[in-house]
């Protein structure tokens, strides 16, 4: 009798746990009706947000689902988009990219980061990109019948990784903003596609990298120039594969990184020193001229010193330590040093910065030698 009762109970439980439609589990989803969203664009309006989404190319090569709506907040916008797509269930568990439009970045990304952390659907390792302009324009403009924004961003991410620039995630942005009140994220801009000469397929807009953007207290503080981006990248994670044009030659940096330390005099912080070591190879050279390795090395060092100086100088001008110089400097504080950590905000903008780069050309493919 006991066994029969146990078997009946087990069968009853099995029926409840089947996952078939209409059972007690509200999170049930039919696989064939799921439409995974891979890219989200967010812009701010006066009354709320503009949410644009793209599903990416389907596994059968089908056209992407690209949608846009506005609502009072992100979740209401998600609900509204779902109303517009009754045949597919929009599924946000595999979002790869979040594009932040200028209007959203100007007013602050902290609400977005809060939402991403709280939403069970979102992942914190989703790549966050700041768009120069409107995010919805980039999402819709870069999508067509055979391509979409996700493909373009995936390609851009691969390229940037090859070039050695770091592509920041929501987690890194949130962590940086909370730790030091500022963060870096990659910036992109929408451009008419210039590269395509002839194709049978429709031509959509390109989304190209545009250096880094600086977020200060959650809001957009500045876009870095190409030179500042190189300096920031060297200090943040180091770069590999970046190209530098010098005196008619094209060099490729590999294994380049910079580190900051404090200059301490009698236990007081009197400056910041940045040391950079870099190796480079010559990719292209001036027509006819033999390479002067020593001249190139000093030009390379000067170029990198300038890049580092400009990145730090912007940081000081903004009063925003987006390079975490404070952390690096405090690591080198001698025992019993004065409390520079507490005075950092006031000291930092006027601290003298010394930059020293030692470039080395390791490879040259000069056929004439």
């Amino acid at each position: 009798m006991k066994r029969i009762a146990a078997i009946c109970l087990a069968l009853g439980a099995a029926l409840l746990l089947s996952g078939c439609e209409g059972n007690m589990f509200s999170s049930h989803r039919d696989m064939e009706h799921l439409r995974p969203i891979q890219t989200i664009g967010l812009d701010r309006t006066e009354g709320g947000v503009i949410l644009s989404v793209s599903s990416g190319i389907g596994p059968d090569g089908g056209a992407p689902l690209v949608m846009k709506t506005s609502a009072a907040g992100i979740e209401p916008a998600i609900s509204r988009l779902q109303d517009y797509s009754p045949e597919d269930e929009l599924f946000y568990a595999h979002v790869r990219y979040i594009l932040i439009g200028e209007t959203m970045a100007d007013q602050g990304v902290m609400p977005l980061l809060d939402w991403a952390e709280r939403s069970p659907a979102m992942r914190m390792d989703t790549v966050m990109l700041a768009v120069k302009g409107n995010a919805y324009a980039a999402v819709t403009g870069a999508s067509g019948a055979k391509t979409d924004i996700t493909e373009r961003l995936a390609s851009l991410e691969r390229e940037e990784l090859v070039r050695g620039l770091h592509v920041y995630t929501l987690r890194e942005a949130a962590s940086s903003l909370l730790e030091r009140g500022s963060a870096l994220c990659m910036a992109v801009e929408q451009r008419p596609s210039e590269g395509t000469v002839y194709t049978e397929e429709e031509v959509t807009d390109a989304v190209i990298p545009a250096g880094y953007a600086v977020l200060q207290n959650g809001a957009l503080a500045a876009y870095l120039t190409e030179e500042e981006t190189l300096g920031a990248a060297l200090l943040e994670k180091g770069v590999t594969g970046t190209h530098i044009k010098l005196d008619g030659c094209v060099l490729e940096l590999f294994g380049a990184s910079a580190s900051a330390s404090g200059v301490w005099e009698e236990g007081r912080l009197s400056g910041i020193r940045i040391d950079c070591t870099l190796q480079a190879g010559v990719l292209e050279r001036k027509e006819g001229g033999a390479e002067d390795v020593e001249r190139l090395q000093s030009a390379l060092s000067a170029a990198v010193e300038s890049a580092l100086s400009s990145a730090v100088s912007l940081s000081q001008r903004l009063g925003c330590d987006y390079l975490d110089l404070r952390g690096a400097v405090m690591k080198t504080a001698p025992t019993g040093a004065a409390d520079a950590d507490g005075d950092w905000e006031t000291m930092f903008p006027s601290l003298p910065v010394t930059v020293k780069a030692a470039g080395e050309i390791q490879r040259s493919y000069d056929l004439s030698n």
Partner: protein
Amino acid sequence: MKDSTVTRPQFAAAIFAALLSPLMRVLPRTSVLMAGRGAWLCAVPSFLILLVLTALMNLLRRQLRPGEGTANLILRYFGPVLGRLVLLVYGAWFLFYAGFILRGGAERLAATVYQQSNTDPFLLVMLALCMLAALGTLRATARTAVILRAILLLALALVSLFAVSNVTWKNLVPVDLSDAPGILLGAWPIFTVGGAAALFSFLSGYVEPTEKPAKWVVLPLAIFSVVACLLCMEAVGTFGAALTAHLSYPFFTMIRDVSLFGLAQRIEAVVIALWVFADFVLCTLLLRCAHEALRTVCGYPKSENLPLFSPRRGRWLLWLEAPAVWACGHFIAASSQQFSAWSQTRIPLLMNLFVFAGFPLILLVGRLRKMLI
């Protein structure tokens, strides 16, 4: 008559699996709030404090007669009236804490997977399952816990392995002497959770006697400390101290980003669901502890080998425990914010009172009694 004795390894497994539930609730957030990036070192002082507690519990264990648990000892030391009062207070704490644990499990599911859900269905289902286990033998619960501990540890190990690529080592160092006060403070939530193991000495009467009890305590304690260290290290390494302190369940948020070689993602629901096992073991043990306290108050003998639903020999007390636990779980807090307040301050303080003040007091009373009589 069937042998209902629990072996030492089984008992150690049950306690270990049970403690993983509160450990995940308080860590790494509470330690990070106090110790910052040095939270991963908090497990060291907490290990030392728990070793002292182990030595104290060993002194108490030596006073036990064969088949006795702490409840019998309290009755002997404090006398029939005061002893019964102390046992009622401990019994009430067990039931209250069981309700808190069930509510905590429900809040965890509502915060991470079933967002904005009502917590009552989770609470009721878990309570029903724990009641079924509590009505059975402790041996069955402990044998189940051996398997559950292995599953939970395997899940922890795999998640830690796959999450290590997201760790930024810069978030963990440098840690210097100026961080020491914070690290010592940050040990508080860890040894509070670990100290809860002492409460299960109420079940000592069901555990086989051993000549080397320390062997079954020190190793699990060391593993417990390593797990605590690892939890803090990975969460702080991944999110940084400031972000970790903002997250409700940093470990489960971290799992959202885990990818198994790019073949599988979004495994967090499975891992979160596994922690229901830890809640199940802890709540079952607490129900049994409460039963031991109340049974001793009423003077009922042990009732291990009775049929499952038999109310004889004080088993009806277990049926009274269920509504009390449900009421505690349901009414403890009207919102998750109120529940967090309980979780962060009041519950740890009460736990410290019952463990780090209560057990030394029992020992002291016993010593004084011996001196006087």
